[in-house]
């Protein structure tokens, strides 16, 4: 029987994957420069992220291309799998000879690509959507060689705002329940530090594993510190179970939720009556003209609302990479392109819009040796020394039928909270 069980376990571990490769193309005129994109096109929310990047490439080509050539974006699927992602990135770098790589989405995929492909091969990498602070740490140690940028704010923004909620509400003791994966561990670590900075005591930090039959013991553990509030870095599936258990065991209904719990399923299964003191955090689109312009352009091009995750970020990632290629000139290498990024995100530079006309204008300014300030779908993008961006934030609550905004924190305010922390 032991043998049978082993056979069974092996079968249980067996999974089947398939590889799909899709290629974007652009019409070549005089010459064509390839750029790479590694994105999870095989998942439903991943495809629009790739399409909006191609949209940016098309606009740039309409303005005559970047770095003197038309741009062809070669797109490969990551299947949200680090192994597949690394293979895809390696093929793009080694076979297609790209100097710029867009992607990936998940931090867990971007990280191995960065460390084992783009940094060793000196390729510039621009991620639309990876939020882990592990990249910041890596950049601080100089391991990214300044070749990594991302247009998505780190989890640090949400954590900082979460700590602000606790401080504003006067919750002095908070317990943390977090999903036991890269994202959750990252969140738990940062929020604990932010709470400490804000003078909020963390009474306990408990990891919840996926697919457990019961979270009762974990919840009881978190409850034992008798906190004033609970911080939830969870997904709706385990979040629902844990919060129902938490409330049932008499836990406080003062809650701070990460954006992952912004879900109707969670609201309905927990019950709105228990969520009156539950505040969520999220990063937000800037309330800027350029962001509205992107929404308009997106509607016109795709006949849909740009509501999916990472769309504005993906568009800006592609645009900025191409602007930098333009600034670096024909035949530029990855490090040269990366070094040109400050020239296109200069707060003192000529403001340019995120469209064909804007890119054409940028070409003129850059050709004259000037600098430009890109005003994109996520606002005026500005990278810090680690290639990170910040973003405005919102504090939200569950309402009867919608998500209600409690407070909008513009970029300046978020930066102020972050620098306190």
């Amino acid at each position, binding site marked *: *029987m*032991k043998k*049978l*069980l082993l*056979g*069974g376990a092996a*079968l*249980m571990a067996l999974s089947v994957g398939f590889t799909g490769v899709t290629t974007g193309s652009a019409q070549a005129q005089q010459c064509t420069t390839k750029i790479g994109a590694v994105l999870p096109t095989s998942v439903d929310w991943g495809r629009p992220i790739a399409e909006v990047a191609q949209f940016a490439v098309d606009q740039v080509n309409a303005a005559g291309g970047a770095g003197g050539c038309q741009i062809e974006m070669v797109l490969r699927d990551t299947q949200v799998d680090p192994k597949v992602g690394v293979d895809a990135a390696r093929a793009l770098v080694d076979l297609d000879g790209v100097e710029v790589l867009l992607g990936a989405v998940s931090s867990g995929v971007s990280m191995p690509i960065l460390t084992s492909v783009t940094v060793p091969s000196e390729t510039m990498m621009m991620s639309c959507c990876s939020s882990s602070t592990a990249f910041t740490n890596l950049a601080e140690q100089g391991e990214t060689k300044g070749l990594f940028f991302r247009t998505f704010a780190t989890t640090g923004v949400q954590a900082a705002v979460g700590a602000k909620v606790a401080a504003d509400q006067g919750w002095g003791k908070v317990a943390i329940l977090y999903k*036991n994966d890269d994202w959750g561990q990252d969140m738990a670590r940062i929020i604990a530090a932010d709470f400490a900075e804000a003078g909020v005591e963390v009474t306990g930090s*408990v*990891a*919840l*594993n996926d*697919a*457990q*039959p*019961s979270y*009762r*013991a*974990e919840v*009881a*553990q978190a409850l*034992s510190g008798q906190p004033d509030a609970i911080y939830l870095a969870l997904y*709706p*599936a385990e979040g*629902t*179970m844990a919060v*129902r258990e938490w*409330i*049932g*065991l*008499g836990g406080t209904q003062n809650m701070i939720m990460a954006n992952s719990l912004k879900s109707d*399923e969670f609201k*309905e*299964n*927990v*019950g709105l009556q*228990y969520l009156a003191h539950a505040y969520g955090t999220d990063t937000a689109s800037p309330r800027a003209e350029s962001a509205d312009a992107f929404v308009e352009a997106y509607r016109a091009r795709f006949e849909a609302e740009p509501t999916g995750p990472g769309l504005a970020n993906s568009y800006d990632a592609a645009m900025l990479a191409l602007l930098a290629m333009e600034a670096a000139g024909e035949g530029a290498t990855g490090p040269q392109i990366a070094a040109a990024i400050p020239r296109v995100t200069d707060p003192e530079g000529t403001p340019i819009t995120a469209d064909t006309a804007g890119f054409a204008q940028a070409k003129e300014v850059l050709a004259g040796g000037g600098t430009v300030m890109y005003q994109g779908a996520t606002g005026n993008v500005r990278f810090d020394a680690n290639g990170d961006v910040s973003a405005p934030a919102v504090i939200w609550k569950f309402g009867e039928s919608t998500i209600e905004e409690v407070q909008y924190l513009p970029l300046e305010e978020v930066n102020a909270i972050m620098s306190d922390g």
Partner: protein
Amino acid sequence: MIQHLIDGVLVGAIISLGAIGLTMVMHILRFANFSHAELLSVGAYAAFVLGPLIAGLSGALEAGIGPLSLSWAVALAVPLAMAITGATAVLLDRIVFQRVRAKGGELSMVFASFGVALVMRNVIGLIFGLSPHLYSRDIAFAQIISYDPLIMVKPDQVAVLVLALILMLALHLLLSRTTFGYSLRAVAENPDLAQVTGVDLKAAIRAVWLIGGALAAAAGVFYGLTNQIIPVMGRDLVLPIFAATIAGGIGSVYGAVLGGFLVGIAGNLALLVLPPGYTPSLPFVIIIAVLLLRPHGLFGEARA
């Protein structure tokens, strides 16, 4: 500490019910049935569908029983769900396992059970969707039994424990006091010899599936009541149930009961010693420890 112990007993009751059915099937049909835990889902979803139907008959049934979040309607749906799940188990045997048994070996049965588990889980997901459902949206509040040390128990959990113990007692009486029970045990002991003495082997196998399915259904409803109903609940519970079965000794109903409580309590107490991220490893640790110390489980016997 005491709180964890109590929680462990309450969780253990559900695992025990699941393990009883599994141990009986494993003993009599001699294969590790990985689809057994999916029967819990079948039972839970059957009661989920039947509950509102029964409530439709009379509005009064929609009310909760006393302090429980369990409504009369869902309570009445439990026996029906047990019957449906038992029948499902018999049907699965008829469609799949019987045929494989006739032609293939033990390993083929194990593989077949994997396939059956996948099919069942995904069919349930197709019909009901992948997101969780609840018997009642109301949150069951725990009653404080003692303040120092703080001990809290939910009425639902006590009810589940009592009902589980009643089911186990009924099974015990069935197996130890009736001729039917003797014949089942005889088949488990030696199918050929049992047939010689006039036991209908096919009827016995059918009965084992029925009982196993019915107990699994009860476990599924109880699990749904204290947690949530979700298509992957079988997958989440399969390891604890297997750990309980193996720890108790394959074939021993009493071992399965004890194993269930052991796994439940150990899972809850583990948090006191292990970081929370490592507690899912516990069922494996129990399986390995038992197999090392008592290869046939706590109550199991060696057999060829």
